[in-house]
């Protein structure tokens, strides 16, 4: 029976929104009334909403299947329309294989993380607010991936940025040793870095609309293709430009947007700091979903990138924009992989690793291996979420152990429940410092096993998910771009090495701190999602196996060469499979080189070698105590910690950028522009909003607003109630007056 659930698409947004409303409006009351029950209500409600959105995604997936994967646009209503300017942006959902893939990842991994967070956030004073933000994030992320136009994508893009900002600063009152509000600073840093990218996005959208007269994906792409075929120029009023150069500008601006959101050079600096947020947030927003939206943007706009590639247009005659994408991705992958060596914070290692893996995806997208990019995006969502949640479990366990010894020393019962990353102890114990860990494999068996799986998947060990997706990218690189291939291969070696280092330091050896010796396994609500993710990290590669038995290949999807490529076959319905030549557009069945035994062999040997090196050579018996220096500290690699690029960047490039902006403002902007635009509109709006956020949202909390609205409603209710006097004749009067008003209206209509 053909299934048609496309009409359900709006539900994708409805469910998370209900969750936001529930937790934002009443969640806190439940918790105040009864801590344990209230937390269950609040957390599970949010989780069920996320799961419901996942079910909708699955239904959409099945519907697409029964409609032979034809893209469907579900039009809800016209959002913005200025008929005189020919401007029309609908609120419509693009349901095709690409967006459904993203929806499945976002809602699926998102649901697991919601459930995990119920355990992780247990006891947090702002429990319900946290879940309200998480659902809000899902809401915006789903707008981002489901919109059928760039404006909706941008709305989601801004929205997830806002949620990321709110969640990084979730524990905004936390200060570092110097008394600086570090979480609030990290949030601000993310906000600023993203603004740069957003500005580029706005410019790109304006340019797109100016050139093609639409912001909807389909019309833009088909219009661009037509123009390319006919060799038409793009006319902007008095002057005109070639399609290639216009699209180079658009795609380069998209790339800048992507470097902001997906943490690539030069805007990557905010992501490691973003780890100040609660761990589920790191897993959901800063590893699995939001940071991949840059890749989604590029893959979604693949037609534009391919046209640029085919037209041979370059940026100032140096490099074409898709190539630039590939180089930036590869460079980021390598740089972040190197920085990860020098980190002691368990989450920071993972953060740099995320930056590095995002670099892999961006590089793949830049080389035109869109399917490979998406494949890596999916598997990465599985194993990186797993690793982050696993690290959360480790931190949780360490906190527990610390509390245990603390209580023991003072000979009293533990009163407060340990909570996440917060540590309100007098001593400087840091539950995230890998130097204080060690030997956790005995204390936290489940966490150890799943973490091991995640780490090996990330390192690219056969046959875990990471191997297949990373290898597809590398194989592509070896065919199309040797420089990128070499950079990425080195980055892959780094990956294996730092993961080996981390495994060794956290789980093996002897406990280097009493807390590690007394660490405890996390509750089932946390470990069960971990197990599910671990299963996915093992099996995820099956989505796009380069070879499988001939029989299965024939049953499901016959691919030239008898290769079974599930994801490839699935995504080819939304990623245009065509080649642009001098004669115009030639549609081809996509037959990329996807598996090369040589490349796979080399990378596997290197990965295993790096793991062995980390495990048995460099960190064989070290470190024995928490104070012992890292064995790598005497090697050149450690220069990054002496002179981390991070610091370099913040000390020289950012102030330079600020000075440039200052100079532009003082010398170039004319007074009106500066005074009016900056002071009045930007600053005053921002200050106003900040004021509102600080006074209403933060101080009184959402609760304050609810109370305000509640008392208003109550006052109104009591006022209306006065009319309900109990006298039947009054009621008759109401009927009579109602009739008179209706009659008056109808008589008025008649004339």
């Amino acid at each position, binding site marked *: 029976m053909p299934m048609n659930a496309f009409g359900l698409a709006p539900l994708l947004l409805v469910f998370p929104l209900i969750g936001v409303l529930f937790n934002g409006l009443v969640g806190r009351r439940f918790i105040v009334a009864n801590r344990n029950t209230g937390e269950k209500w609040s957390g599970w409600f949010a989780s069920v909403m996320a799961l419901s959105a996942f079910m909708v995604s699955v239904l959409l997936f099945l519907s697409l299947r029964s409609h032979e994967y034809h893209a469907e646009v579900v039009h809800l209503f016209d959002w913005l329309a200025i008929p005189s300017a020919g401007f029309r942006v609908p609120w419509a959902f693009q349901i095709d294989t690409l967006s459904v893939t993203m929806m499945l990842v976002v809602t699926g991994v998102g649901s697991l993380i919601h459930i995990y967070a119920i355990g992780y956030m247990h006891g947090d004073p702002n429990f319900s607010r946290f879940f309200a933000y998480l659902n809000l994030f899902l809401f915006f992320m789903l707008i981002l991936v489901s919109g059928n136009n760039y404006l909706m994508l941008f709305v989601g893009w801004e929205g997830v940025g806002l949620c990321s900002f709110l969640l990084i600063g979730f524990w905004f009152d936390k200060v570092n040793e110097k008394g600086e509000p570090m979480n609030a600073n990290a949030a601000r840093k993310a906000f600023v870095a993203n603004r740069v990218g957003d500005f580029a996005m706005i410019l790109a959208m304006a340019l797109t609309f100016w050139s093609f007269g639409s912001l909807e994906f389909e019309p833009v792409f088909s219009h661009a293709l037509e123009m390319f075929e006919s060799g038409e120029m793009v006319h902007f009023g008095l002057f005109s430009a070639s399609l290639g150069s216009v699209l180079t500008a658009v795609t380069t601006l998209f790339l800048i947007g992507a470097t902001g959101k997906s943490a690539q050079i030069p805007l990557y600096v905010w992501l490691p700091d973003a780890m100040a947020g609660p761990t589920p947030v790191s897993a959901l927003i800063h590893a699995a979903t939001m940071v991949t939206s840059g890749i989604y943007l590029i893959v979604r706009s693949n037609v534009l990138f391919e046209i640029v590639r085919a037209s041979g247009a370059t940026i100032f005659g140096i490099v074409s924009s898709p190539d630039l994408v590939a180089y930036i991705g590869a460079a980021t992958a390598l740089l972040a992989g190197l920085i990860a060596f020098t980190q002691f914070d368990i989450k920071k290692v993972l953060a740099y690793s995320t930056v590095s893996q995002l670099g892999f995806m961006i590089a793949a997208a830049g080389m035109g291996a869109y399917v490979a990019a998406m494949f890596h995006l999916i598997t990465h969502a599985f194993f990186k979420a797993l690793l982050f949640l696993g690290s959360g479990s480790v931190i949780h366990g360490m906190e527990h152990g610390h509390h245990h010894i603390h209580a023991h020393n003072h000979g009293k019962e533990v009163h407060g429940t340990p909570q996440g990353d917060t540590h309100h102890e007098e001593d400087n114990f840091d539950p995230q410092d890998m130097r204080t860990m060690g030997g956790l494999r005995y204390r936290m068996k489940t966490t150890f096993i799943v973490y091991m799986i995640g780490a090996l998947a990330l390192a690219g060990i056969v046959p875990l998910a990471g191997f297949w997706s990373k290898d597809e990218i590398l194989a592509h690189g070896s065919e199309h771009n040797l420089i990128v291939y070499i950079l990425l291969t080195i980055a892959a070696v780094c990956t294996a090495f730092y993961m080996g280092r981390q495994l060794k330091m956290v789980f093996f050896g002897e406990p280097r701190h009493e807390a590690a010796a007394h660490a405890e396994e996390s509750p089932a609500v946390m470990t069960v999602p971990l197990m599910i993710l671990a299963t996915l990290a093992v099996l995820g590669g099956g989505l796009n196996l380069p070879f499988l038995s001939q029989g299965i290949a024939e049953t499901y999807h016959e691919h030239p060469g008898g290769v079974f490529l599930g994801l490839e076959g699935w995504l080819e319905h939304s990623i245009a499979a065509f080649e642009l030549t001098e004669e115009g557009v030639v549609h081809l069945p996509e037959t990329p080189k996807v598996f090369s035994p040589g490349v796979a062999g080399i990378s596997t040997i290197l990965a295993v070698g790096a793991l062995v090196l980390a495990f048995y050579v460099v960190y064989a018996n070290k470190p024995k105590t928490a104070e012992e220096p890292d064995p790598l500290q005497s090697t050149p690699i450690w220069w990054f910690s002496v002179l981390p690029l991070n610091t370099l960047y913040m000390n020289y490039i950012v102030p330079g950028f600020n000075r440039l902006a200052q100079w532009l403002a003082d010398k170039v902007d004319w007074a009106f522009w500066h005074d009016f635009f900056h002071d009045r509109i930007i600053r005053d709006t921002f200050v106003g909003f900040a004021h509102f956020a600080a006074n209403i949202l933060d101080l009184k909390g959402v609760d304050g607003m609810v109370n305000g609205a509640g008392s208003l409603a109550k006052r109104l209710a009591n006022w209306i109630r006065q009319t309900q006097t109990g*006298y039947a*004749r009054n009621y008759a*009067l109401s009927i009579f007056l109602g009739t008179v008003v209706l009659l008056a209206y109808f008589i008025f209509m008649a004339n």
Partner: protein
Amino acid sequence: MPEVTIDWYVALSVILFSIGALGVLLRRNAIILFMSIEMMLNAANLAFVAFARHLGDLDGQVLVFFVITVAAAEVAVGLVLIVTIFRTKKSINIDEIHLMKG
């Protein structure tokens, strides 16, 4: 003497209807209230008959019988209710029954 057209009947019916409605709104005695409602129904009956005459169609006159019958049924129920209330309250002042409000 002006000719009595359909408009006169309709006007009379509207006047009767309004008097009835005002009676419902202004009177306190439950029985008079019901009489006012009866008057509204009969205003409708008058309109039916007048229209039927004007259109040369018998349906309107038949409809009047239905309305009269229903009115009779309503009155029966209404009087029963008044008697019941009178037994508990010893009053048929409609303003004295306002236990429930808000």
